[in-house]
């Protein structure tokens, strides 16, 4: 069996599972965010009275943090009340940030767990060897009532990463290249595992970016085998004892791909699909009205660090808005302590408090018709960040920072010598 199958088998109380089997799994942690009042509605519509295990449920108010309209405020208020009524202590309010980063910061994510959230980017937790998957409101409400959810055991695709990343090229460019090659529906219903020697050179933040964006190829979950880097990261953080599962050498992958990244160039996903990926150099000089640095994909300390390095002693280009959103309070505190926030704000960045912000087009950096934006987030669907006629280019945090300096798409490598 694969490690992912071993995780699922344990959660289902079975010795063995096979690809395609439908199993009912215990869920170790289920997360609800603040666009999902429907979760509470579905809970009551299904006859729910008390949450099955309040310790295994967390509410994180991130998509509307803090509320911009009365309706958003009402929804958040109802969620706080629900947590109080149900004895749910893991309520992270609007000061905390994007759910995935918040769960990691607070040590709630660990290898071998089953983590289900009302957010498609839950695949991110494969970076820790967890089974993370996104669902909708009614599935999450089912977990609140029963503690369990059904899954189909997925086929698993292996993507081997070898070589050394050139200057100015990052994990974000790698995953964009993969999605561009394999396309947006390549991994639907399947799991994606990353392996290979490149991973030894990638920290947790970059691994999270890889796993995060497997969602954009349709993946149900993703996986990176936990190693010393994972253990060291979790040593200070993890609040649970954990078990690391290993795949059997004989496990038959559905497909295997290999990427040598040594000659990879910076990549961009051009409008209006995340698999519309081309070398960044094809777009050099294209004017950008906005540069967006943030989200569960591109708002970590490492992302702010690279941006600060590029902006240090420079100014944001006149006429371009540079929106910076630390992914979490933890990220913000560290970025302040290290001086990154100071550098970015002095350079002319617009600071937004931790949360999802403009990534999903709800508030804090919405685009007008005809505007262009380069984004370190994950999506460039029509209308994703505002008007459907706005154009979004998805790239690495370094590419976003370079565009903020020049007011147009630029190669970040020249700022990193």
């Amino acid at each position: 069996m694969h490690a992912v199958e071993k995780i699922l088998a344990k959660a289902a109380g079975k010795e063995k599972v096979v690809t395609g089997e439908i199993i009912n799994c215990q869920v170790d942690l289920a997360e609800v965010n603040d666009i999902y009042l429907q979760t509470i509605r579905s809970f009551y519509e299904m006859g729910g009275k008390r949450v099955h295990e309040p310790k295994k449920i967390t509410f994180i108010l991130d998509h509307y943090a803090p509320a911009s309209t009365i309706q958003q405020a009402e929804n958040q208020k109802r969620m706080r009340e629900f947590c109080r009524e149900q004895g749910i202590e893991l309520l992270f309010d609007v000061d905390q940030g994007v759910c995935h980063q918040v769960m990691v910061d607070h040590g709630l994510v660990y290898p071998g767990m089953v983590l289900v959230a009302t957010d498609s980017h839950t695949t991110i937790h494969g970076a820790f060897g967890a089974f993370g998957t996104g669902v909708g409101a009614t599935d999450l409400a089912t977990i609140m009532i029963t503690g369990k959810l059904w899954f189909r055991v997925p086929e698993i695709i292996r993507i081997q990463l070898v070589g050394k990343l050139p200057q100015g090229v990052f994990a974000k460019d790698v995953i964009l290249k993969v999605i561009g090659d394999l396309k947006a529906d390549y991994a639907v219903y399947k799991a994606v595992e990353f392996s290979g020697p490149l991973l030894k050179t990638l920290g947790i933040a970059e691994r999270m970016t890889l796993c995060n964006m497997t969602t954009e190829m349709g993946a149900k979950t993703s996986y990176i085998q936990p190693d010393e880097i994972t253990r060291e990261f979790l040593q200070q953080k993890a609040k649970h004892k954990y078990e690391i599962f290993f795949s059997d050498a004989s496990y038959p992958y559905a497909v295997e791909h290999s990427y040598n990244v040594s000659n990879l160039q910076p990549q961009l996903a051009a409008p209006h699909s995340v698999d519309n990926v081309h070398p960044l150099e094809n777009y050099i000089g294209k004017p950008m009205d906005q540069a967006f640095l943030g989200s569960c994909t591109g708002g970590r300390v490492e992302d702010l660090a690279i941006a600060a390095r590029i902006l240090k002693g420079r100014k944001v280009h006149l006429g371009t808005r540079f929106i910076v959103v630390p992914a979490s309070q933890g990220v913000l505190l560290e970025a302040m302590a290290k001086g990154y926030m100071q550098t970015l704000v002095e350079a002319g960045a617009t600071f937004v408090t931790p949360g999802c912000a403009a990534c999903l087009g709800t508030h804090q950096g919405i685009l007008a018709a005809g505007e262009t934006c380069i984004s370190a987030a994950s999506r460039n669907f029509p209308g994703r960040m505002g008007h459907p006629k706005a154009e979004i280019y998805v790239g690495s945090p370094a590419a976003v920072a370079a565009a903020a300096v020049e007011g147009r798409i630029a190669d970040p490598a020249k700022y990193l010598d």
Partner: protein
Amino acid sequence: MEKVIRGKAFIFGKNIDTDQIYPGRYLELTDPQEVGQHVMEGADPGFAKEFRPGDIIVASTNFGCGSSREHAAVALKAVGIGAILADSFGRIFYRNAINLGIPLLVCSHIRDRAKKGDMLKVDLTTGLVTNETTGATAQAQPLSDYVMMILESGGIKPLIRKQYGQRG
């Protein structure tokens, strides 16, 4: 649940994400009828006006990809979608729609066999799709027993209510 569905076809392309089915700026809405007013607005702003209950969406690959927002399925349910036929579906959308009792059928190249406004007949038991306007037919993958059970129960909510609703 009706096992045979008849409705007019609305045609969409590939990778219709849930942002297009239900744009992010309306995510704060919670009343299904209000949610339904914005159905498919990001892909076709005129859709809600033209759509009649029972009508059928026909799409290419990866319909419902992207964000997990259940609003997408709630909106389609609220306006009375008859069925959705596509080459493939985004997985979270698939679960959300089936949970709400919306019939989703995987039907290869269906988009080549229907034009906007054609009258389609879908037999959920056999998976046979008939274009009554042109006479063309297509065979969808039959629904699994598990999915059929959920649909026949009117979605997952009545099922869970029956199994667990008395607890606590």
